[in-house]
């Protein structure tokens, strides 16, 4: 059977839907954002060209660095904790029996609940006066903590809520990874006298590494896209301590009426994501090259 198309335009026709969707909803908006980032525009009055003023204002006010640092910090917290808890839970719950199945289901259930519902639930739980967490703390004589009202704490709280929601997903990925590891290999190692820790380090973890890379990448993307949880729980506050990238972009357009400033933030965010992706690809490439050589 020949793979040659019957008409020269057939491949283009096949590609067209993807190209149109990508072009309309990704490339065109990106090009528009790039163009708008050199303008001052409020959607109502005509745009005025301002050169690099939007970038300069973001840089000079220190806003850009603060938002980037906050977003990265939040991403690191979310990725590291969801990976660790997901792996820990997968190892604990990779057993047969109804109880384990129930706990696996319970942990995963948070992942399928909508972000807004999760945010509202935690808003209620963390209320410093009447929330369940504050009451429990008071019950055992601990001082009350303003989880969402303390600027030094709020990013950790939001990361905690995000980790709570997505750990179930990490756990399911790791469970799938664990079930791919042949039991016979682990049994043989056990017969040879390998301790559980040694079996984990030498067999389980190396075989789970691709899963970890996948979970790490998807959680990082998810943490960079975080918006609902910020919008519902803190609106970027207190004192902008939880204003991360996507929320900052929303705030510039919809609160401050500055389309140009928001577009400049979008462009910087895009460059940052491209940089991170390139870094990640490089690391993977090095690793796979290393594997081929050994």
């Amino acid at each position, binding site marked *: 059977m020949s793979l040659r198309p019957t008409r020269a335009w057939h491949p283009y026709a096949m590609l067209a839907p993807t190209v149109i969707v990508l072009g309309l909803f990704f490339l065109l908006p990106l090009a528009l954002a790039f163009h708008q980032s050199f303008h001052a525009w409020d959607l*109502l009055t005509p745009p005025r060209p301002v050169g690099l003023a939007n970038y300069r*204002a973001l840089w000079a006010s220190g806003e850009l660095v603060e938002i980037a640092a906050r977003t990265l910090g939040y991403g690191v917290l979310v990725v590291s904790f969801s990976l660790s808890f997901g792996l820990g839970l997968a190892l604990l719950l990779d057993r047969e029996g109804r109880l384990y199945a129930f706990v696996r289901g319970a942990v995963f259930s948070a992942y399928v609940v909508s972000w807004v519902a999760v945010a509202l639930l935690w808003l209620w739980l963390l209320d410093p*006066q009447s929330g369940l967490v504050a009451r429990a703390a008071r019950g055992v004589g601990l001082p009350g903590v303003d989880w969402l*009202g303390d600027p030094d704490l709020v990013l950790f709280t939001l990361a905690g809520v995000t980790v709570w929601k997505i750990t179930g997903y990490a756990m399911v990925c790791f469970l799938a990874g664990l079930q791919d590891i042949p039991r016979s290999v682990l049994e043989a190692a056990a017969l040879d006298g390998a301790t559980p820790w040694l079996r984990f380090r030498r067999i389980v973890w190396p075989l789970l590494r691709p899963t970890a890379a996948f979970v790490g990448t998807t959680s990082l993307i998810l943490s960079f896209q975080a918006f609902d949880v910020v919008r519902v729980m803190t*609106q970027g506050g207190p004192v902008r301590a939880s204003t991360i990238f996507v929320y900052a972009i929303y705030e510039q357009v*919809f609160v*401050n*009426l500055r389309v140009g400033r928001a577009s400049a933030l979008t462009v910087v965010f895009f460059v940052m994501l491209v940089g991170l992706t390139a870094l990640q690809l490089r690391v993977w490439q090095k690793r796979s090259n290393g594997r081929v050589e050994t």
Partner: protein
Amino acid sequence: MITRRSLSRRELAAGLAGLFASACDTPRRAPGEVAFWFSYGGNNRKVLLELVARFNREQSAVRVLPTFQGDYFEGLVKLRTGLFVAAVPTVTHVVGEVLPYLAEAGVLEPLDEIGDDVVADLEPSLSQRGTFDGAAPHPLWALPFNRSTPIAFFNRPLFDSLGLSPPRTWAELRDVADRARVEGDRARWGFECPVDWWFWTALVGQAGGGLVERGALTLGGEAGVRALELWQRMVHEDRTMRPPPGRDFNAWEASNGDFLAGRAAMIWTSTAFVRYLEDNASFAVGAAPLPGDVRRAVPTGGTFFVMPRGLPPAEREAGRAFLRWMMAPAQASEWARRTGYMPVTTRARGELEASGFFREHPNFRVAVDQLEVAQRWPWSASLFRTQREAVQPRLEAAVARKEDARAVLAAARAASEAP
């Protein structure tokens, strides 16, 4: 039947273009239909929808279709987006601070044709001309709808048991807040107030300042600093005031919630919540005017009805018919009576006086009486940006971190003047 051959590439392209064009086209409304975008939740929404339903029942020429668009600021975003893509409502309502911006951007339809009788009946200090300094030469861009002032609400039985009266000065405010506070397990704040531009503006006025002085944006100068320092002192030194968490109306809801739950003895919020707080409190709610410092002063707040520019003449007339009906004494007084907002026409106010409503419900009268010390906003297209971008975010930081008030306001002035 369409054969494969008959659907040429050109026809396909034309079809797609038509599809996009129709998706982007201005929505066409049936004759007599009025699209009304509004921004209320809770009781105020219920009252408004009942009024609209009554209007639709009472006549058949105009049909109002109300659509909820989120809070004021979410509604404003949708209005701006709608203006950009020419998909606007017939009538909507916007906060006062944004009115000069929309008017100067040329996106509003003048409402002078509403009728001289309606314009003459508007409560002077709540109308466009009475609300803004320098609005006199402009056409009538807006009609007052839900207008308010900030007032103090206090837990009356608690105040009685502690022998407290609503404070009349800043010194009394600090003292009362201190005496009403309880620490420990059953903690209660003496005072709670959203760290919001509106209440800060009230304090600036009370300290003797204005946002614009002698034609320059000063943000109150020394009065602005003193206003901010009062909050800082009550939060950090006296530890009697809780700055509620959340931004915008989230903070307002938080302080209402704390008051109703007995966690705050006294709050400052809008007169708009009189009915809500009275209906939902398990105790008798007292309302009082805000205290003064070197003088008494309050800003006005709430929203104005506006009509976007560029609608067909028949739709404009239908919109005006609805607005005329809402401005009539029966509706304007009912809206005030059932919510807590102020009557926006002199005849509506007269009706409430004559029926004895204010005598029976003194809490509803507080804001109306306070109008005698109401201050005007400057008619400036940048007022909204000064509020949302320059001042509001900095107030929160200044109070939470006890930053130097003078430096904070200097930064806000600089941000407000930046292009």
